[in-house]
């Protein structure tokens, strides 16, 4: 005889403001098999949980229905409470009165009626629940860090320093990311390379870190603690063991006019190249798309000059199979370029550049060795207009969000320019100055007060060229919307930060969610900012949203701790809500006829086949078998099974049927 306890939560006023919770509790209390129906303001709080635990013991409950919020957040909470009360945690169900009822309806009788219906379905369902035991799976204690920018570097080093193995995969030929392109960093103006390159070297030399550059994720299967990852190591056309990194090949390559990605197109590179002098690893790769040999079938100058004969033109891509326990995504971001802005000439003016290009101009290792020169004629600009919020916070451009880093780096850019060229005049057009961060506001004040950067509050409507000057037209909204026109030598656009190319594709390979701007989505905006919705996959840095260096580094360390915590256990427990094929006594063994229909529909490759043999070892029966480790409980196999031999723990056909019948019947 079932004895069900029902606990109706008010969720503060989230539910009780529209649903008459007392009426719900009373009506449910009258149902058959309901031993107790109680209500409380915050069921997830300690007194609320105690209420459940005590009731289980007092009324000897055989099932519990918590009528509260979506199970996403608090199902584990209440299952734990039930377990502490002495009830198998899988005999607890949640009725979602918040997202499915109170938040989406007006306050009236019908809403309360619907709430009662929702609870009734779960009461009927929980009667059919079975006690289940969690599944135990081993943990592979090796982490994968995708992306070798500052976030990836920090996460990899932190994990490696806890004693665990780390594999870092970076798609470009060197680690370092955007931070290696920066000249100085705010708010201290210390040199980016000086603080970054030692960490890059540390990654390369760390005994616990295996580094694969020029490599990309091919596929990811499996689940937390047990991922199977295929990595494509793109052919560098070079034997890395033999190559000494002398760089002779890069100086002799006849192909020299390829826009240099590291210099943001402000400089050129050969087809065999080391991206920048401090690259890690400091060995070249051949860019096959631009290499004369791969295009025309002859050249091989690099092979001829190489003193160690390290060039391998026929080297194939290599696929690595890795067993991975946890994944940190640190793939970073990109920025919009000047061609995104028709009002600023679709990128056709050479002296209208973006923020990263300015970083390269200001960098001591950049194409101009740190002298700020106009790309068009090499002259030092006598004045520069900096445009903040170029694209950001602009719904008309499809980018509603704030890119967060631009206010600070624009102030930095203006300061760097003024420090290098004292007579220069720097204007910054801005919407608001968002300098929330330690010593950030002080930094901006320094730009205004000490370096006399001219901040103009207003936006730029258009930029055009006239007599070799860039005419910048805008408005000064602090002076009554007066039109402003500046004849500038150079314009720097603080363009919006956007998701990196390939982010969407990677998210799909990893089965993690992403937002409408293709940034990776966190599991909870406040309480799980480092986790993704997929267990065992974590986020670090600007792949989640534009972030500055301190934020990226903090989050990377956060992700590393999550990984370390995971690796502190030898085994993981998983929810046993998985599919199973029925088993019967011989001679039937199972109603499954091994038709195999379930196999191709399973998105997780969790279905295997099983053979039953007699004493002579002869196969007398075949049936499907579900790998509990891989099954995610989606139920697709249940739906396709013709002989109804597969069912799902926790969501059996009978349970769903009971829910439907409950809705159809009057009570």
């Amino acid at each position: 005889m079932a004895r069900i306890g029902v606990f109706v939560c008010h969720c503060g006023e989230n539910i009780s403001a529209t649903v008459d919770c007392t009426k719900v509790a009373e009506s449910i209390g009258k149902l058959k098999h309901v031993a107790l129906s109680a209500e409380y303001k915050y069921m997830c709080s300690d007194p609320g949980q105690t209420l459940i635990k005590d009731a289980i013991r007092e009324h000897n409950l055989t099932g519990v229905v918590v009528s509260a919020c979506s199970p996403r957040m608090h199902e584990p909470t209440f299952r734990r409470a039930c377990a502490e009360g002495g009830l198998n945690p899988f005999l607890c169900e949640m009725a979602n009165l918040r997202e499915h009822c109170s938040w989406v309806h007006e306050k009236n009788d019908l809403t309360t009626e619907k709430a009662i219906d929702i609870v009734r379905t779960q009461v009927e369902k929980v009667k059919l629940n079975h006690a289940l035991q969690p599944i135990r799976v081993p943990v592979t204690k090796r982490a994968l860090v995708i992306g070798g920018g500052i976030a990836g570097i920090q996460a990899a080093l932190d994990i490696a320093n806890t004693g665990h193995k780390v594999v870092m995969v970076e798609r470009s030929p060197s680690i370092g990311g955007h931070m290696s392109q920066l000249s100085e960093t705010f708010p201290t103006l210390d040199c980016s390379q000086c603080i970054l390159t030692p960490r890059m070297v540390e990654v390369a030399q760390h005994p616990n870190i295996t580094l694969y550059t020029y490599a990309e994720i091919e596929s990811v299967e499996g689940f937390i603690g047990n991922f199977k990852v295929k990595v494509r190591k793109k052919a560098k056309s070079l034997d890395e063991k033999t190559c000494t990194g002398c760089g002779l090949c890069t100086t002799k390559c006849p192909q020299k006019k390829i826009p240099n990605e590291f210099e943001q197109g402000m400089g050129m590179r050969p087809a065999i190249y080391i991206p920048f002098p401090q690259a890690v690893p400091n060995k070249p790769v051949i860019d096959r798309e631009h290499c004369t040999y791969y295009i025309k079938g002859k050249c091989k100058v690099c092979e001829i000059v190489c003193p160690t004969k390290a060039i391998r033109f026929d080297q194939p891509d290599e696929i690595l199979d890795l067993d991975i326990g946890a994944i940190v995504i640190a793939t970073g971001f990109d920025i919009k370029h000047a061609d995104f802005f028709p009002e600023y000439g679709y990128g056709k003016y050479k002296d209208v550049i973006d923020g990263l290009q300015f970083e390269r101009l200001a960098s001591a290792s950049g194409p101009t060795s740190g002298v700020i020169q106009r790309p068009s004629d090499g002259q030092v600009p006598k004045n520069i207009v900096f445009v903040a919020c170029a694209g950001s916070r602009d719904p008309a451009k499809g980018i509603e969000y704030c890119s967060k880093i631009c206010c600070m780096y624009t102030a930095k850019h203006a300061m760097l320019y003024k420090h290098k060229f004292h007579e220069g005049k720097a204007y910054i057009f801005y919407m608001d100055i968002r300098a929330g961060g330690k010593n950030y506001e002080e930094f901006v004040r320094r730009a205004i007060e000490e370096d006399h950067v001219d901040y103009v509050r207003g936006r730029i409507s258009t930029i055009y060229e006239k007599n070799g000057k860039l005419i910048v037209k805008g408005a000064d909204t602090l002076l009554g919307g007066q039109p402003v026109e500046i004849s500038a030598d150079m314009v720097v656009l603080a363009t919006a930060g956007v998701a990196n190319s390939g982010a969407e594709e990677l998210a799909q390979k990893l089965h993690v969610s992403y937002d409408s701007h293709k940034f990776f989505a966190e599991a909870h905006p406040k309480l799980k900012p480092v986790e993704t919705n997929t267990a065992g996959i974590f986020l670090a840095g600007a792949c989640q949203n534009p972030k500055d260096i301190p934020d990226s580094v903090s989050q990377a360390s956060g992700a590393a701790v999550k990984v370390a915590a995971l690796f502190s256990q030898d085994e993981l427990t998983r929810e046993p809500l998985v599919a199973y094929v029925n088993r019967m006594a011989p001679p039937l063994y199972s109603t499954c006829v091994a038709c195999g229909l379930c196999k191709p529909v399973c998105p997780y490759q969790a279905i295997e086949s099983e053979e039953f043999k007699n004493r002579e070892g002869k196969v007398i029966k075949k049936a499907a078998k579900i790998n509990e480790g891989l099954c995610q409980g989606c139920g697709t196999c249940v739906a396709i099974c013709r002989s109804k031999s597969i069912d799902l723990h926790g969501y059996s056909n009978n349970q769903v049927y009971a829910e439907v019948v409950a809705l159809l019947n009057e009570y």
Partner: protein
Amino acid sequence: MKTGIYPGCSLNGSARDYNESVFALAEAFGLKLEQVADWNCCGATAAHNLNKDLSLALPARILSLAEQNGMDEIIVPCAACYNRLTVTQNELKRDPELKNRISEVIEMSYNGTSQIINVIEWIDKYIIPELEGKVIKPFDRKVACYYGCLLVRPYKVLGYDRPEDPQSMDIVMSKIGATPVYYPFKTECCGAGFSMSRTDIVANLSGKIIEDAESRSAEAIIVACPMCHSNLDMRRDDINKYWNKKFEIPVIFITQAVGLALGLSAEKVGLKRHFVDVNVG
């Protein structure tokens, strides 16, 4: 396909030259253009500043008349009329309730079936494909194509050309032998309706448009809007006084430029009506 024409007030008044050149082109290519019978004012700037229903009802009546006349499309040479008609068609399409209300106001049924095209679309559709061999006097000049505000904006409603850096006139002009110059003032404001009340503002703004075109060695400014034309051409004296300069660059409707390239006479395309002498073509 029956093509109608809605002239609006200016093509019968200050922009008769524009009207004459449109019909001259139609005649040269054997295109029929029937005027929308019993047409009324499009409401211009005045109506939508005063009363939204009025600003929709006036163009709606014109569109209804066009439907009654069985016109599949109507060419609207005036950029302001083109804008008002298209905005109305768009709003009534979006909001069926509004459409019914406006239908009641004008006491006519309105379906929104007549397609509205501007003069450049008309040239693109009917004249450019037939152009081969007909350009006997190529318009071999540097020109600045000036689009103004109403022809390409708002993009979400008109969906025509690029709002920041439009190209359609430049393309037509290059097809008749002209060389369009790089011209960033394509969509800058000419002063528009301030022509009457604050001529000094028009003199300033239109002056900038002219000054930039001249400085880029353009030999003519090409327009497709009566308002732009009157501000740049008729107000030239005011502009010259304001700027203390003597700007001489002529302002030519695109239909006139195409007509000249076909070998039509200056008189035929209405060039004699200009305030600034036209010595090109």
